[in-house]
Each structure stands twice: as structure tokens, then as C-alpha cells.
């Protein structure tokens, strides 16, 4: 079953994705933008999986969903380290 909050989250996520794709060349100017965008894309994938688990393969997709969240968190941590952890990261 699809939940309302999950559907809303997906819709908003797609909106952000459109924003990201529309401003892709600008966002590429951000430091370590590939990692940051990857974190977003992985998180977006988790939100898709959340919706999909309501229809089939609940256990598997739920596990993948959480793995996406964790992967997104790890990528964020890496991005933070590259940007703020290095002395000259934020130039």
C-alpha cells in the first residue's frame, strides 16, 4: 500500500530532481559536487524504493531503501570531509 506521506515525499523529491537537473551546470561549480549530487540521487532512490515496497518484495526493497539512506549518509559524510575536513577544501 502506498502511504500519503511517501507519495508526497516522492513528488517533492522529483521536484527537487527537476531543479537539480535544470541547474546542473551551476551545481557543478559546488565543491565536490559529484559526491553531493550522488548523495541526493541515492536518497531519491531510497524514496522510490519506499513507495515500491508497498507493492512487491517488501522485505528486499525495504532493506535496499535503508541501504540507500545509509549510502546517502556515508556520501554526505565523505562530502563533508572533502569540503570541511581539508584545510583548503572550501576555496
Amino acid at each position, binding site marked *: 500500500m502506498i502511504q500519503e506521506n511517501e507519495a*508526497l515525499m516522492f513528488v517533492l523529491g522529483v521536484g*527537487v530532481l527537476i531543479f537539480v537537473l535544470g541547474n546542473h551546470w551551476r551545481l557543478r*561549480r559546488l565543491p565536490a559536487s559529484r559526491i553531493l549530487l550522488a548523495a541526493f540521487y541515492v536518497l531519491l532512490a531510497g524514496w522510490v524504493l519506499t513507495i515500491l515496497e508497498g507493492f512487491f518484495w517488501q522485505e528486499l526493497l525495504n532493506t535496499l531503501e535503508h541501504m540507500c539512506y545509509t549510502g546517502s549518509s556515508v556520501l554526505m559524510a565523505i562530502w563533508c570531509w572533502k569540503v*570541511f575536513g581539508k584545510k583548503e577544501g572550501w576555496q
Partner: protein
Amino acid sequence: MSPVGIVDLVGFLAILTALAIVWRGWKRALERDAKSLLAGLLALTLFHSFSNTLEWSGITKALDPLEDNIQVLAPMLWGFFFYAFLQTVEITERKRAEEEVKRRNQEMAALNAIATTMIQSALDLDEVLQRIANGLVEGIGCNTALIFLLDEKEGVLKGSALSTKAKTLERINAIIGVPVVQLKIPARSDFNEALSNALDGRMTIKHDLYELAGPLLSKPVCSALRRLLVSKTFLSVPLQVRGKMVGGIFASTREELGEGDTETIMTFANQAAIAIENARLYEESQRRLREMNSLLEVSRNVTSTLELDEVLRRVIDTAIATIGPAEKGTLHLLDEEGDRLVVRASVGFSPETIGMAHLKPGEGYTGWVFAQRQPLIVGDVKADTRTKPIDLPEVHEEKSALCVPLVVRDRTIGTLTLDNVTRYDAFVPEHLDLLSIFASQATIAIENARLYEAVQQELTERKRAEAALKEYSERLEEMVDERTQELRDAQEKLMRQEKLAVLGQLAGGVAHELRNPLGAISNAAYFLNMVLEEPQPEVKEALEIMKKELGTSERIISSLLDFARTKVPTQREVDVNDLVADALPHADEMENVEVMWQLEEALPVLLADPDQLVRVFGNLMLNAAQAMPNGGRLTITTEFVEGGTVRDPQSATRIQVSDTGVGIPEENLDKLFEPLFTTKAKGIGLGLALVKTLVEANGGSIEVESEVGKGSTFTVRLQST
């Protein structure tokens, strides 16, 4: 814990790590105006950790409605995060760009100040070069800067100024082996990449010094220099003015160079090149000014005299003194015939060489210069095909020469040649230009001196001609006077002769006609004296008077007849002293007269008519006695006089009859020898006329000197045989 829980835990730990990293970087991030970025990031991260923590800790179900609502915010937070992040980056970049512009403006202002100082305050080339080097070190931030200047004549770049922060100059020199400012780089594009770029007006930046300085400097030298200078970047920058390379900059920096830095350095280099060009132009103008002053001084020196030989000597001396490399020199002038160049002045050559150095136009490089009317630099005298072979050691010594024509009013009058005996190619085009200018001045001076000499010569000739004309005029006057006098004399002589002829004819007729009556009277008187034995005293006195006057009449008639019948002299050898002695009148006619004889012995024998001369001397002595009625002294002098004096131009026997009588007034002297002129009461004025006639008939002359009251002297000159 379920596998999903473990995964969530990992994600939770990752979030914590991210928070820790952000916390550490918080302060730096704040300094960079990243507040909005961090705010969004923290919100996002907290949300992640919150949602993950809920499921991992098992309290998800208790907070389930809240969690669901919070999760809905996740995409919104991401969108806000991206937006805020972009804004922050753009703001930061804009600020950074503004700061960069500000920094660049400050740098350019500083650079402009340095360049202005370089260009305006310094005109000495060495000082400008040093300021450029110092500007690169102090203003641009280089730690070493070396300036090279292009020497077009030698075709090399020469090290000219060095500036370095470190106290390493001596060590740099020691590593290179020569003072760094004495380095020379061939200005060829094939020397190395940096030089090729520089010649094309491009900057070269290298991290390896050898790539920039090799093969001028070896690899070990480059490595040692790099260690010494502690530099990351080495660069060469061309110095160009109007697209023409005037030199180059070699510099090193401790830091990497950004694009702005290279632009700054190029701008600085352009300013520096202008400053160098200005300094060079100023130096050139100063050099030209010095040359012009020198030429002015030289011209004054050369033109301060008008004596041609002195001008020529000064020209050659001054040319050698003015043209640095010149050691010897010759000045050829075209001779009057116009077919030979003659050495008129020289320095450093023997007379023997000068004698052989006369040339025909077109002969030798000097003749070539004369014929072509073009200045010439001979870099190697021996190798030049125009050189005239002269087999003299001192000529063989010459290695290079400089020759210019002397042209005045489109006419070549000679050449000026300077020689150097120590090196080939001693003269350069600047010397040629200078000598050409000098030669034009010298030519004017020479021409002036020649004109002056010609004028002087013409003046001298004119004076001489005037003197000759004047002399001729005077002589002509004298000749006219002489001829006039001769004509007058001839006329007088002719008139006198005519007069004498008429007079003689008349006198002869009269004398002939009177002689018969007088003879009858004389006979009658003689008869009366005979027949009257005792005549009365009055009768006797009358008879005596008659006798005396008849004698006087007889003498007058004889004189008239002598005068009228002057015979052609019968010349024979005579002794003048004897004739003079024979001519002394009778004693009764010399009453109260003292006679003094001053006769020179051994007079030369004369060829003359003795009877006529006796009559001459007798008449002169009688006249002298008659001039001394109260007595006096009669002096008869004979002597031989040598000729050659004004008074006696020819050798002659001179007979003088002097008296101490009454003298003759000056106005009568000219008329004294004219017939019928007399001052005596008794006389008809034929005596002295007869004397003159007889003397001249015997080839002599007579003249008289007299002073009234003191006496008179008659001088007769007779030519010796």
C-alpha cells in the same frame, strides 16, 4: 539487531561523522560566509540522523506519525539546501572576484607607480635597468630578476642588471663561474625555446631552470641555482617596444604564478621596455649632443685659420682625435691638373709612404671613394679588392680603414681617410656618419682657405702688376722726358747749327768784307808811324790806339772767320797736358793772375785735333783771366776719371779751368754757350760758342759751374782712345 538495523546504524554513524567534520570546519566556514550553506546542511543532516535513528532505536512506532511528517520535509530541505548552497557559492565567488579586482587594481597602481618612477625619474640606462630589476623583486614579488639587453651589433643578449632578495649574488656568480651580469646569450631563435618565444614576444614559464636557461647553463649549474634560489617557477619575459625586442627579463618566484601574475609581469615588462627605450633614446640624444658639441668645437678649430696648409693639418689631426679608433690618416686633394690625388696632410706615415700614396681617381679604395663620391668602411684592408698594393711594411700594418669624400658644391675636391692598425672592423657606421658630418665642415674650411689663398695670390699679383705698371708709367714718363729733352736738345742743336751756319756765313762774309778795309787802315797806320819821326804826343797816342783797336778788330775778324770756317777735326794722338800748357795766353793778358797747374801725370793718350783743343783751352783761360780784372787765381787741372758714376758714366780725361772771378749769374748759365751771347763790354759772344763747337767736334762735352762772386769752373771731358 536486524540487518536493516545495522545498515541504519552505519548511516547514523556516518551522519555523526559528518556532523563532527562540519563542527571542526565551522569556524573556517564562517570566515568564508557559508552560514546559509551550513544551516541547510545541518538541517538536512539532522533530519537524516533523526529518521534513521528512529528506526534503528526501535522507537519508530512510538513516533511514527511524527516521523512520517518529518520525512516529508526531506525533499524540501534538499531543495532549500541546493538553492542556498548555490547562492552562497555565487556570493562567495562574486566577493572573491571583487577582492581579486581590488587586489589587481592595487597591484596595477603599485606597478604603475613603479613604472612611472622608472620612466620619469631615471634617464640613465644603468639606473633604469637596476630599477626594473628592483621593481620585479620588490614590487612584483620575484625573488631574483636579471635584465638582459639586446646588442644588435654583436647579436647577443647581454646581462645588464640583477636584483635578488637573498644574499646570494656572490654564490650565484660562484655557481655560474662568471659574474651573472656578464652572461651573453646569442639572440637566435634556435638557441632554446625560451629565446624563441621571447623573439616572438611570448613569455616562457618553466619549473625546471634548465629548460629555460640551457644550454647557456649546464644541468648541474641549473640544479645548484634552483636549490640556492628555492624557486618553484622560472620565467623569461621579452622586453619589446613597438614589436621590436630590446631585451629580456629572467626571473624566479617561490610560488606558482597565476594568470593575473603573468599579466602583471607582462604589463610591467612593457613599461620597463618603454623606460629602457626612453633611456636609450636619451643616451643616444646625449651622445649626439656631445658629438654635435664636439663637431662644433672641431669646426671652430678648423675654421679659425685661413692658411691652407694649417687648415689641412688641423683637419687630419682633429679627425683622428674625434674618431676614436683612428690611429693614422691621410688627406688627399685633387691636383690642379685634375688627374691625381695628392696627399696634402697626413699623420702616422713616413715621407716615403706619402710619396707613394698619390693616387689616380678610382685607384685604391681612396680613389674609389673619390670617384664614386661615397663614404666607405673597409673592415679588412688587405682583403679588400680595391686596395692598391704598396710594398711598404707600414702599409701592411693597416687592418681597417674609414674613408669619406670631400664634396663642396657638388664637386669632389679630395678624400679624408682614417686607418686603424690594431684590429679589423674597427670602424662602425656611427663613425662613418660622424666623419661624414665632420668632412662636410672640413671641406668648407678647406675651400675657404683655398679661396682665401687664391684671393691673396690674386691680390699679390695685382699689387705686383700695379707696381710694375707704376714703374713702367714712371719709366715712361722718364722716357718721355728723356725723349722730349733729346728732341729739345736736338731741336736746339739743329737751331743752333742753323743759327751757327747762318751766323758763320754772315760772319764769314762780314769778316771777309772788313778785312780789306782794315788792312788798308792798318797799312796807313803803319805808314804814318813810319813817316812821322817825331810825332806829337797826341798823334802818337792816337796811332797807338789805332794799332791796338786794329789788333782787336783783327782778332774779332779772325774769330768770326774761325767760327764761320770750323774745319773738320784732324785727329791724332795728343798729350792733353802739353796742349794745356801750350794754350796759356800771353803774359800781358794774364796780368795779376796767379796760375796754378794741377796736371796728372801719365794721362792716357787722346785722339783729337790738337790745334782745336789748344784754341779751346786758350779761350777758356782767356775768359777766366778776363773774369778776374782785379787779379785772382787760375787753376788748370787735368785728371783721368773712371766711369760708372752719375757724374762720369764713362771713363774720360777731365780738364777743368777754374777762376776766382766775378762768377756767372744762374740765369745766364743756360745761354752761356749760345753764339753772340756775352756779358763782357768787349766781345761779340762767339768764344764759348766756338769752344763748345770744337769740343763736341772732338767727341767731348763741356759744362760750367759758377757762383756769383766766387768764380767759375769749366769742365771739358774728352773720351780716351
